[in-house]
């Protein structure tokens, strides 16, 4: 892990970087002088605060803005699962362990991102109404927590996880080349995908059918039109400029089906595409 390569890359685009960091760059050098005894997990925290102090930006397209956007989504997910675990009778015993795992992960992501952002982290209380979300998304969904409607809860969980994957994916180019921050974001991204797959597996069991698959087929394969917008563009057939339905599967001799093509690639969403999906819940 070479944190100085990041600093050097930044210096190429920002000649005044040293001035911005000074004397913090020396502090970082001191940090690494602890050598391998410094836990790798601690480095993102140190670097995150370094970048924040240096730039202090709040718009998407920079490290702080990107991570705060991620933090807002993690606040939403953490509160969602915490509420579920605090709603007796909602989650069947068979699925309790899974949601305890998922909730623990989302809360840990919050802690991790807050640690990276330090003083620049947006406060949870800035979200919703003093930190309390509207789980009906402006009365577009039934109040599943009140009615203990597990099926609707699962649909929303399905939407949150698949959308979370899309959000992290869409933000990756904003932190391209940043070994510490991008790698951490990718490491969260794949955890959200694991969650999404498992929630889809739960839904298959509940439905007693083969759907929804653990991977996304076409645009919206969840069976709930209320979350169509969360899956807009997942039916993309073109990757790297190639319409993949024109490629032949060498094994079968047939063209790849649109189902396989859309399942094999998850699609990103931008900040501006994600925001309308989560603002009804109170994300700001």
């Amino acid at each position, binding site marked *: 892990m070479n944190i100085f390569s990041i600093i050097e890359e930044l210096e190429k685009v920002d000649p005044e970087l040293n001035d911005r960091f000074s004397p913090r760059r020396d502090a970082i050098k001191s940090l690494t002088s602890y050598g391998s005894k410094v836990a790798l997990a601690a480095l993102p925290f140190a670097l995150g605060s370094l970048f924040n102090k240096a730039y202090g930006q709040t718009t998407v397209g920079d490290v702080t803005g990107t991570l705060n956007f991620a933090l807002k989504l993690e606040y939403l997910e953490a509160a969602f699962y915490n509420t579920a675990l605090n709603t007796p009778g909602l989650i069947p015993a068979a699925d309790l362990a899974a949601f305890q795992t998922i909730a623990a992960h989302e809360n840990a992501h919050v802690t991790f991102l807050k640690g990276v952002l330090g003083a620049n982290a947006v406060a949870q209380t800035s979200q919703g109404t003093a930190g309390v979300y509207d789980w009906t998304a402006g009365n577009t969904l039934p109040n599943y927590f009140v009615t203990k409607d597990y099926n609707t809860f699962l649909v929303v969980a399905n939407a949150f996880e698949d959308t979370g994957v899309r959000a992290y994916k869409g933000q990756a180019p904003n932190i391209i080349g940043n070994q510490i921050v991008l*790698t951490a974001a990718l490491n969260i991204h794949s955890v959200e995908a694991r969650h999404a797959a498992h929630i889809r597996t739960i839904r298959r069991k509940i439905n007693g059918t083969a759907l929804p698959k653990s991977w996304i087929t076409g645009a919206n394969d969840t069976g709930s039109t209320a979350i169509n917008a969360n899956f807009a563009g997942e039916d993309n057939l073109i990757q790297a400029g190639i319409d993949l339905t024109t490629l032949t599967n060498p*094994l079968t001799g047939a063209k790849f089906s649109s189902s396989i093509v859309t399942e094999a*690639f998850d699609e990103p969403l931008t900040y501006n595409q994600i925001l309308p999906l989560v603002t009804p819940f109170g994300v700001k």
Partner: protein
Amino acid sequence: MEDLQNDDVLIEDKSTLDVRMQRRSFLRYAGAGAAGIGLLAAASCKKHNDDVSATIDVGSGDIGVLNYAYALEQLEAAFYTQVVATPFTGITSAELTAFTEIRDHEILHRELFKAALGTSAIPALSVNFSSINFADRASVTGAAKAFEDTGVSAYNGAGYLLTNPTYLTLAGKIVSVEARHAAFIRDLISYNSFADSTVVNNTTALDLSRKPSEVLPIVAVYLNTSISANQLP
């Protein structure tokens, strides 16, 4: 040494192709037995001076990372092709359907990298699954879990090396599907292990990431071809 000489024979025979294509041919025809030895004898007097290593290096920069991903996708595609061709004892129809879908996802990933890399693509790799008992559920699902978790950690660990945002996004589109596969297979083996503490850190809830130099030794057991990523960090 015999391998190197075989390689040279093919270079002699197809001198207009680039080195990578010859090695590809070499891999395809390696193990051809008596025929190869005959060619070797006929051509041994015209041996090249330049020493062509049998190890395939993925290259450097973005192309190196994409070839590294291409290598892993080749491996996964070959594995699931075998899984579906010789299903393990007791496989359910739903499981066979899922493994067939996963197979096709991985073949498509492989074919996309091959098409996108064009002449920069490394050759087809020769796989070795002798350590896997394809008739046995635990052996197959265990190997599948290892392939998927390793694949996720490989994409996660190499993402920062990409300088082209289009390539980074493409890698991101694939890695989350690999993570879905991983979760699905983990739940097959042990329900609710989709993101357990063997892959997701208990404190930070971050998935694993591995450097190419950490991934390649893990997958080497499944390859006859030797791969290196010496030009990647």
